[in-house]
């Protein structure tokens, strides 16, 4: 197998446990593994509800927080062991687009400022016209024109435009990977497709992979190549996006996909569901399956040990559930 672009190995992140928290620990991410190949570029979805650990993963990959145990390797180099120069290089190759296209801009500057900063920090251009050309190219990739937007202030742009500019800013560095943390959840439905289409084009025409962090399985289904579904910090199911969403195996993923409202009044939710009365769901026991309190198929053995990922189908389709321990 060729050298992977990014590899996350047994990543575990534990928050708290310190004196001030009274020793209470929250396992945000547990023994997580992920490999992004160098080529072809892929859109890899990390999906889950709030508290599932998906943003923790994004922050780990971006280097905002440090792992408790495990490793993140970029082209076989451990990200946490890099010196400053290598770190800067890593930042150049791994870029980010965030959820809120309103909060990332400084309202006192024209939007051009975000591009100028990037060009200055990474020394991308030798002259002003050169810089302007780079910005123009990046804006064209996301379907914007420099003269339309660059000299405006953030409040004068629509949410969709702002989010496209953030993608353009990331593209300016010609990264290999863009970590997109909920990039469309604050953009109106009619403009969402445009951002997703830009992601597809960057993947196909510019070989940029995406770590697409989302809670919205429908958009993941429309654009994603592979998917990792997290539940309380543990991978519940992973595999090819279409295969997983059309044929989910893990009881949690089945319940999740079943709950997505279908825009057709004739296809109503078929039954009532309820969460267990004991809503202490986030107990964070180290032993046993996290989904046990809500699982319709639970077995006694689920309480003893967290089930490992079992191979349940082709193309790396795996689920962490004892229901599949014997079948495959």
């Amino acid at each position, binding site marked *: 197998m060729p050298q992977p672009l990014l590899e996350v190995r047994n990543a575990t992140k534990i928050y708290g446990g310190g004196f001030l928290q009274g020793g209470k620990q929250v396992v945000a991410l547990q023994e997580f593994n992920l490999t992004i190949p160098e080529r072809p570029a892929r859109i890899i979805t990390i999906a889950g509800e709030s508290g599932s650990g998906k943003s923790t993963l994004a922050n780990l990959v971006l280097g905002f927080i440090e792992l408790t145990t495990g490793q993140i390797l970029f082209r076989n180099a451990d990200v946490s062991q890099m010196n400053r120069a290598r770190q800067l290089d890593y930042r150049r190759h791994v870029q980010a687009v965030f959820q809120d296209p309103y909060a990332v801009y400084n309202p006192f500057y024209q939007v051009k400022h975000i591009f100028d900063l990037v060009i200055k920090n990474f020394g991308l251009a030798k002259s002003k016209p050169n810089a302007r050309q780079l910005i123009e190219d990046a804006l064209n990739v996301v379907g914007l024109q420099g003269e339309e937007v660059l000299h405006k202030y953030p409040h004068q742009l629509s949410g969709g435009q702002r989010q496209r500019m953030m993608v353009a800013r990331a593209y300016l560095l010609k990264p290999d990977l863009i970590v997109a943390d909920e990039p469309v959840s604050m953009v109106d439905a009619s403009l969402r497709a445009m951002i997703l289409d830009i992601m597809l084009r960057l993947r196909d025409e510019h070989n940029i992979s995406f770590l697409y962090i989302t809670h919205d*399985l429908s958009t993941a289904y429309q654009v994603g190549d592979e998917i990792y579904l997290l539940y309380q910090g543990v991978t519940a199911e992973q595999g090819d996006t279409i295969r997983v*969403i059309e044929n989910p195996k893990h009881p949690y993923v089945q319940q999740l996909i079943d709950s997505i*409202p279908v825009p057709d009044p004739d296809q109503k939710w078929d039954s009532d569901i*309820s969460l267990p009365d004991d809503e202490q769901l986030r107990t964070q026991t180290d032993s046993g399956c996290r989904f046990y309190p809500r699982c319709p198929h639970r077995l006694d053995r689920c309480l003893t040990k967290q089930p490992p990922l079992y191979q349940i189908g082709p193309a790396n389709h795996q689920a962490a559930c004892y229901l599949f321990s014997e079948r495959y």
Partner: protein
Amino acid sequence: MSYNTPSDDYRPNRRQVALEVKDLQVHYATPEGDVRAVNGVSFKVFRGELIGLVGESGCGKTTTAMAILRLVQPPGRIIGGQVTVREKIDLLSLTSQELQTVRWKEVALIPQGAMNSLNPVMRVKDQIADAIQSHEGKQSRPALKARILKLFNLVGLPSRIYNMYPHELSGGMKQRVCIAMAIALDPTLIIADEPTSALDVIVQRIVAQTLLDIKQRLGVSMIVIGHDIGLMAQLVDRLAVMYAGNLVEVAPVKAALSEPLHPYTRLLIESIPSIKERKPLKITEGLTHDLRNPPPGCIFQLRCPHVRDKCREVAPPLLEVKPTHQVACHLYE
């Protein structure tokens, strides 16, 4: 339990009207002129009906709801129109004292981000008791407790949360506390502004089921504001689509989704990402006009694929083109 609603055999004319909004106009003052956030909106909500108000951010759906409750904050102000509850109480002409007694008793609100609207230092029971007592006067403790527990039961909350503080509850439970508070006085109408927006899909489904359940049990009418058409399909009887301060289409939810008439409604429905079938993305350039300075004619002309000369001159009125199906578009005149 089935939640099928009688949207097929809709006979609105025979039904009691819970709320009627007529030519409602709300403007926001800005240094460069007024923004017409709600520009002559008219619709009816029938008794026991759930109507969904949808549209993208900034289209005026929340402002419409706030205007119905007369909660528009400056620089916004209600310019004109009528809001009538049960065909007799005109909310916009009440004095503020009269309004205080009517609000919550007739029209209750589940605000946007409702779960964060609970007072963090007050027990859940005290907040609900407060809502009840400020309208109905002081009541005995046992009577209040019985009533609050009954409300909990109606929204599917366990009685053990009676003495809890909001931070001890999950998001879905807090949302249901807000629903319990909204039905505490048995109102004619509940306005729910994005009742499930910050919730995970499974919890969203539970909250939506709770809303349907109380609608069926209490016969209360509801206006649900949102932008998730999928959720609306599961929840509402009729759909009202708003664009740039105007209603562009009002129809039973089934008709609105299976045969949308207004080009904007079609765009909105086409842009729903499907979970059943993978298809090419439908991309639309979305530039809305300056709301301070709407162009003459139709408000959707800048984005409409079917725009004609007439659309640039005359604004299409909201007309009933089929029984129970209203649309504001020159294509259907």
